[in-house]
């Protein structure tokens, strides 16, 4: 296991900000790089305690195969579904256009 303390570069913060669609100023990049580095360091302490024989945990409960029968259950009406939307049109959610991207 690496003993080097984890760190995060300014460029990595800028990349993450772009993926999260957040505007981050030049000044904030330095601030966040420092803060995120501290968080990573704190989390890394867990690795010091957990030995190689302890598998990473993704779920708190030792459960598998929790399934649902394929039976329709009542959901929301269109009116209910759209009730929290800032904007809607023709029964659909209206969202700002997305620049330079297409799924």
């Amino acid at each position, binding site marked *: 296991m690496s003993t080097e303390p984890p760190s995060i570069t300014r460029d990595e913060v800028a990349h993450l900000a772009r*993926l*999260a*669609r957040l505007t981050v100023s030049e000044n904030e990049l330095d601030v966040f790089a420092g803060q995120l580095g501290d968080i990573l360091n704190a989390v890394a302490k867990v690795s010091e305690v957990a030995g190689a024989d302890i598998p990473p945990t*993704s*779920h708190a*409960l030792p*459960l*598998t*195969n*929790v*399934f*649902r*029968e*394929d*039976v*329709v*259950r*009542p*959901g*929301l*009406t*269109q009116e209910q*579904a*759209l009730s*929290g939307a800032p904007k809607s*049109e*023709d*029964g*659909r*959610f*209206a*969202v*700002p*256009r*997305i620049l*330079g*991207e*297409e*799924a």
Partner: protein
Amino acid sequence: MTTNTVDLVDYDEVLEKFDPVMGLEVHVELHTNTKMFCGCPTTFGGEPNTQVCPTCLGLPGALPVVNKIGVESAIRIGLALNCEIAEWCRFARKNYFYPDQPKNFQTSQYDEPIAFNGYLDVELDDGEIFRVEIERAHMEEDTGKSLHVGGADGRIHGADYSLLDYNRAGVPLIEIVTKTIEGTGERAPEVARAYVTALRDLLRALDVSDVRMDQGSMRCDVNLSLMPKGATVFGTRSETKNVNSLRSVERAVRYEMSRHAGVLLSGGSVVQETRHFDESDGSTRSGRLKETSEDYRYFPEPDLVPVAPSREWVEELRGTLPELPWQMRNRVQKEWNLSDAELRDLVNAGALDLIAATVKAGAPSGEARSWWVAYLTQQANTQGVDLADLAITPAQVARVIALVAAGDLTNKLARQVVDGVLAGEGEPDAVVESRGLKVVSDDGALLAAIDEALAAQPDVADKIRDGKVAAAGAIVGAVMKTTKGQADAKRVRELIIQRCS
């Protein structure tokens, strides 16, 4: 955005200089009653946002629960594709910001797919078998549908805003990914089409999906790159998304081969990007630059516990696999005594499944074949539709064949019954009734018609009495005329000869 002006290289020249390398990703929507992680219905074509709930809208506090049939279908697909089934696997969140998923992530599987390491043997047009290796089949969910408002062509660039319908968000999807397909040479486009065709037939036999490419319940992404002859390192690939017909799969591969070659031969480098296929001219155009998988920041889905199919369950599901298309083909080839070429003709004409279903409904294979490849194929051609889309079912064809075998219909009358069924007049028996097509089998009625015909043509009657039986043809003709073709000509002939002896 990259520019769309490229010099396409002639296909033969592409092959002289490069080897194509392909990867095919097929998304198939399962036809479960409900979505993958919630109980919303999956029916196609509902009013927008009427098949939604807090879970598939990503509202705070909502928790997903896995659809059991979704998992079973994934395992059955994996087994049919000769895959190993994971003993333990998890769902993962694929994070991205695009409003087609209101959660801002898609629930998918990342490095732990439920099925992996399989293959599908694909039959090419000349009967050669090409093995396509399967990398993985994993479970995920479909996205909502976006409608872009404003802008010149209704597409996203220049759109003023977008409208979202989440009825489809969360519908179970299985993504089936091939390993790298090499060694196809000039047959790359054909292999791609044959693979998607074989996969579609397989999924249809499994009865897990509607597999309607035209309605989007089966979609194909084509990854393609070129390697200069003799090179050992793959070139940069493009990913052409949502290619939505079998023919388009073939065209997309061919177009991308010519385009890549154009870029490479002019000294440029291929951009790793998503491209969109244009059905109208078979070209592709640049979409977004591809995000790398790190950019999706996959992590295990904390709200869904792992799936750990027991080996007993997997074997139980293996037992539910129906006769698969290639098994059916092998069986009927033996049972019907077909040559390879005859079998291939039936497959290519889209007739094999229909004939097999007609035989299953009780018809002898010879008659079933003859109806589908002759009269019904003619009707399909006249109507300009695929054989399978004719308005007659294999069971109805089998019923017509049974009526002929029982002597209730002559072949000529049977064709009229089929015409009636095709015209929407109902079941074969109803058409026989309403059109009055039953064979006149009452000897009394036939004898009356025979006597009348003999009386009308006394010279012919004398010839028959003198032993010239060939002359009976004229009387048979006359009787068929008076019975409007609804008599069995053989029986009429017998009765005439009896009458004149």
